[in-house]
């Protein structure tokens, strides 16, 4: 068998012999590669921009499980469902790979709780029980005050909006608007400074028979924090967070008076479980695994998937434009190789007479064709980086193409390393495929061509 290095050397010399033609064919591949890489880089830029936009909406690595799920399936249909969220599930989820923290949230709808400030002001905002140890994982940010220590059972975190819920029930208010707003339409400050006020929380039991109110045990709230206002996230704006054990105690106290059976207790049923994962990939996988447990979930990654599906069409069109020019380049390679066969008919005949194996003739042509693809691919990648830089940095382009797709500050065109590798492999393959038929044809040249004396 002929040595592969000798085969390559012969092929390289043939390419070199027709420098200009080889160069022009390479330019064709280069343009094709540049087109396809640039188009794909724009598609990747779209994805990155989308992710940047979604991460502004919230944490992509957090999965939310709600007791009353409001689910969108893969086909975009909505349906209702109910999940049983309890400690058993929490433990199961904690055991999953890629889960960083789990935050069950205890809330109640059946009983009334009241937060008072200085015994005069009252607040009926929704109270959510959480474990302070996992709060940092879920991005709760303080505006003022302090975050609770993990063991602190008597903390309170006010959602920014809940501060305005404090009111004095004994004060007769004639004009509600004037009570809360200045004349120029701006809002008046909250009635209570929570940091200096004496804060207490307690349940109110309404006797269903007599309709009488009974005030239950009072709990002092010592550690006080106010959460940052987040327009995108109503949860952290309109809820008051306390220790999950405190909330549980208060629910159990109510249930004891109401004589609720242990099996129907609300104290161990969570309304929401939030799951923090290590990465977006983990989030998607963990979400699938939780679904397998029969629990419906919601994560921003669902939304992301849907958006990605929508922009896939645009990306296919972009890639299609690139593929078309690479297809033209492929025809260029095939054309060059066929011309080359015509030119070298006699030479191929001579090689055959001298004992060149058919496989070597085929290999030589395939090598030449794939070399054109390979070199064109490499130069094309270089050019793509230039075009990409232009898209990202020249103002005129940025204006024309609208900056990051979703108005984010991300680059318009992104070429990751895998794309570089893929483009080179692909352009080489294009060369190989376009060279296939010419190579086969070359092996069919008759050895008799060597004998003809007319050249």
């Amino acid at each position, binding site marked *: *068998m*002929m*040595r592969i290095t*000798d085969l390559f050397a*012969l092929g390289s*010399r*043939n390419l*070199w*012999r027709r420098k200009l033609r080889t160069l022009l064919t390479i330019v064709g591949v280069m343009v094709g590669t540049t087109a396809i890489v640039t188009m794909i880089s724009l598609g990747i830029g779209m994805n990155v921009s989308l992710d940047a936009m979604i991460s502004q909406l919230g944490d992509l690595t957090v999965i939310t499980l709600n007791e009353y799920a409001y689910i969108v399936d893969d086909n975009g249909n909505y349906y209702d469902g109910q999940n049983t969220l309890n400690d058993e599930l929490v433990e199961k989820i904690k055991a999953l790979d890629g889960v960083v923290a789990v935050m069950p949230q205890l809330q109640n709808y059946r009983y009334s709780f009241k937060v008072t400030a200085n015994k005069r002001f009252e607040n009926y905002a929704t109270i959510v029980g959480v474990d302070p140890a996992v709060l940092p994982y879920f991005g709760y940010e303080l505006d003022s005050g302090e975050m609770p220590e993990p063991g602190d059972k008597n903390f309170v975190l006010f959602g920014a909006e809940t501060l305005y819920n404090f009111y004095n029930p004994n004060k007769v208010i004639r004009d509600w608007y004037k009570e809360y707003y200045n004349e120029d339409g701006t809002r008046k400050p909250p009635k209570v400074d929570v940091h200096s006020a004496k804060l207490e929380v307690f349940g109110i039991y309404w006797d269903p028979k007599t309709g009488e109110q009974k005030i239950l045990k009072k709990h002092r709230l010592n550690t006080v924090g106010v959460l940052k206002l987040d327009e995108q996230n109503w949860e952290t704006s309109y809820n008051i967070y306390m220790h999950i054990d405190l909330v549980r105690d208060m629910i159990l106290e109510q249930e004891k008076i109401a004589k609720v059976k242990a099996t129907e207790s609300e104290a161990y049923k969570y309304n929401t479980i939030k799951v923090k994962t290590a990465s977006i990939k983990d989030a998607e996988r963990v979400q699938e695994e939780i679904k397998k447990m029969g629990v419906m979930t919601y994560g921003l990654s669902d939304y992301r998937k849907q958006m990605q599906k929508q922009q896939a069409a645009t990306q296919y069109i972009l890639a299609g434009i690139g593929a078309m020019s690479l297809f033209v380049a492929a025809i260029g390679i095939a054309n060059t190789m066929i011309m080359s066969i015509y030119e070298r008919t*006699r*030479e191929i005949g*001579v*090689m*055959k*007479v*001298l*004992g*060149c*194996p*058919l496989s*070597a003739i085929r290999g030589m042509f395939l090598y030449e064709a794939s070399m054109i693809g390979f070199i064109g691919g490499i130069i094309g990648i270089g050019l793509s980086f230039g075009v990409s830089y232009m898209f990202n940095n020249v103002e005129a382009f940025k204006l024309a193409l609208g900056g990051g797709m979703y108005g984010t500050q991300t680059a318009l065109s992104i070429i990751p390393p895998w794309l570089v590798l893929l483009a080179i492999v692909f352009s080489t393959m294009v060369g190989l495929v376009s060279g296939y038929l010419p190579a086969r044809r070359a092996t069919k040249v*008759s*050895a*008799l061509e*060597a*004998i003809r*004396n007319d*050249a």
Partner: protein
Amino acid sequence: MIAIFKANKSQDSPRTAASGAAQGDNIITIRGLRKVYKLGRERVVALDNIDLDIKRGEICCILGTSGSGKSTLLNMMAGLEPPSRGSVVIDGVEITKTPERKLAKFRQEVLGFVFQSYNLLNTLTALENVALPLTFKGVPRKKREKLAKKMLADVGLKKHMRHKPSQMSGGQQQRVGIARAFVAHPKVVFADEPTGNLDSKTTIEIMELMTSIARKYGLTLVIVTHDSEIAAYADRIIRLLDGRIISDELNPNPKRVAGGDTSAAADASETEKENNVGGKDFPNETVPVTT
């Protein structure tokens, strides 16, 4: 070997390729070879029922006028073209039944070829051209260049090793062609009008060169020509006319290289023929045969 006598006509001879004993061993056996070209409705019978045996180490000339079918016969012997009918067996291989896929290896091992128009590869130097058959065989670069250099020295072109074909005269190119034909130590070398493009002085040089190398190594050489001057170098002259063998004669006194060992050469070639059969034809240089 004193007088001209008729060579054994194969149909009269009981010998076949297979039965060939050491002494009268035939390297080429042709039986019932026929080639008909169809040009539209017209049929051209280029070869008509050829039977021919060529012995190992024989220098054989196929002589005939233009259109007599010489090239057709040679092409069929070398397996470049399939016959319409009949068989060609070379060194025990029936090449008329061998697919082209397998023919390459056979050509590497057994055949050499000298062309009328030299057919050197323009992109390669003289040295690389000579080494080409070895390249196809898979001989490593160093080894094949060493063999090719030696071969180039034998044809007197040591100084032209690095020249491209375009930088050499026709005679020099044909010397390179001869070196290329012999470098892989084939058993049979075919030459179709090897001097057809050369002047008479160069023709003599080339013929002397080819026949002396063939005799030195005891190779079988089949030369096609229309020039009886050239035929004078052969041991045996086969005349063709209209696709038939019209005469087949041994040459009692083939032309030799002027001076030196000419007289002894005739006997020497006989002994070398013996060596040939024993496979010791290239005592110093053994080309590895890759399988």
